[in-house]
């Protein structure tokens, strides 16, 4: 069995508290710390951002720049590039063809994603006629082994820039983790499961594509923190109230 864990890790899964002890002085400070920590974690996961620039820019087309890879896994950028188009286009935006733009960047001598992401956003309007450019940076990618469990992790940052003003319009960070599914069960079985998972992962490369796709969907579809529906969606413009824009 496998299970997905998303970014919202700072939930209500903390230690049980007995209500009467809440007022006793010695235990109060640590509990306060825990409460603050939980709030902070929750705050991280629930990024409130100002959508007024995005609404003002109202982009119709988005160019996905070659994905920058900050990890040591060599195949990860292409895996991500192949799964970003669909969820983005399904939000109602025109997404530029990835095979074509990838080849054009190489032709421009920009085969390094890091170099492409150093370009001024305005360049993407000159070159492709894009209204906005999406920079994706992979910040974590791989298998993690813990005492009782093993997990496959994909983590990335998404940033959208206006190609007229060069300003940042939107950003999101997503982490998707798929455990090999042994935590919470019988500890001995969990230990064996983790060992088997380790051996299997040593032999077979885990399939990252569904995780990368989920990270992208989470980023774009998230209520209040995702991307508002674009011009090809029948509900374009009708969902503005669902995004914070003071």
């Amino acid at each position, binding site marked *: 069995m496998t299970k997905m864990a998303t970014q919202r890790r700072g939930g209500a899964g903390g230690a049980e508290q007995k209500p009467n002890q809440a007022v006793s002085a010695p235990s109060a400070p640590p509990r306060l710390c825990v409460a603050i920590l939980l709030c902070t974690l929750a705050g991280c996961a629930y990024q409130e951002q100002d959508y007024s620039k995005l609404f003002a820019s109202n982009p119709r087309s988005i160019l996905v720049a070659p994905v920058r890879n900050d990890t040591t896994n060599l195949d990860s950028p292409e*895996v991500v590039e192949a799964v970003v188009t669909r969820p983005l286009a399904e939000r109602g935006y025109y997404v530029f063809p990835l095979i074509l733009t990838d080849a054009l960047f190489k032709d421009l001598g920009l085969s390094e994603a890091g170099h492409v992401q150093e370009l001024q956003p305005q360049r993407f309007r000159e070159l492709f006629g894009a209204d906005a450019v999406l920079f994706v940076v992979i910040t974590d990618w791989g298998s993690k082994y813990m005492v009782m469990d093993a997990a496959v992790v994909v983590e990335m940052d998404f940033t959208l820039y206006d190609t007229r003003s060069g300003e940042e319009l939107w950003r999101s960070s997503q982490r998707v983790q798929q455990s090999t599914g042994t935590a919470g069960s019988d500890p001995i079985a969990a230990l064996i499961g983790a060992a088997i998972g380790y051996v299997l992962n040593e032999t077979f490369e885990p399939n990252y594509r569904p995780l990368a796709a989920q990270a992208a969907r989470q980023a774009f579809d998230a209520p209040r923190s995702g991307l508002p529906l674009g011009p090809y969606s029948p509900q374009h413009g009708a969902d503005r109230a669902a995004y914070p824009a003071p």
Partner: protein
Amino acid sequence: MQSVTQRRLRVAAALAFVCGLGACTTAPRGLYDWGDYEDGMSAQLIDNDPNAALAIYAQTLNEIQQRNGRVPPGLFADYGFLLYLRGDYGGAEANFTREKQLFPEAAPLMDKLIARVRQRQGLAGPPADGVPAPTPPYSSSDSQPPQR
């Protein structure tokens, strides 16, 4: 009094209902018919296999047409580019044109590419600025510093 099979049927129906609901929430009715578009992209981007990508794109476009589905953004353009790599300039131009007819946002880029394709064919048309001709094999040297 219920028989065991009846009860099982009920459980099965309830499960089917819940699964159906789950499907509703995770996959709302999409804007486009994607077919194997993503597999085609992977074939080129990950496996570096333009022939496989071309075959997948051709089949996907065929199937979408049969289903009367909506062609997603980029599919015609990428297909046209793969035809271009093969030297099928007529096919390339036809697909670049379909892309911009379907999505006017693509017009600036498609027009530049069409101009280049025509140049290659030895036809008229002034050279387009900005986007260089996609000349395979790519001269992907890292010598050029990033432009700021």
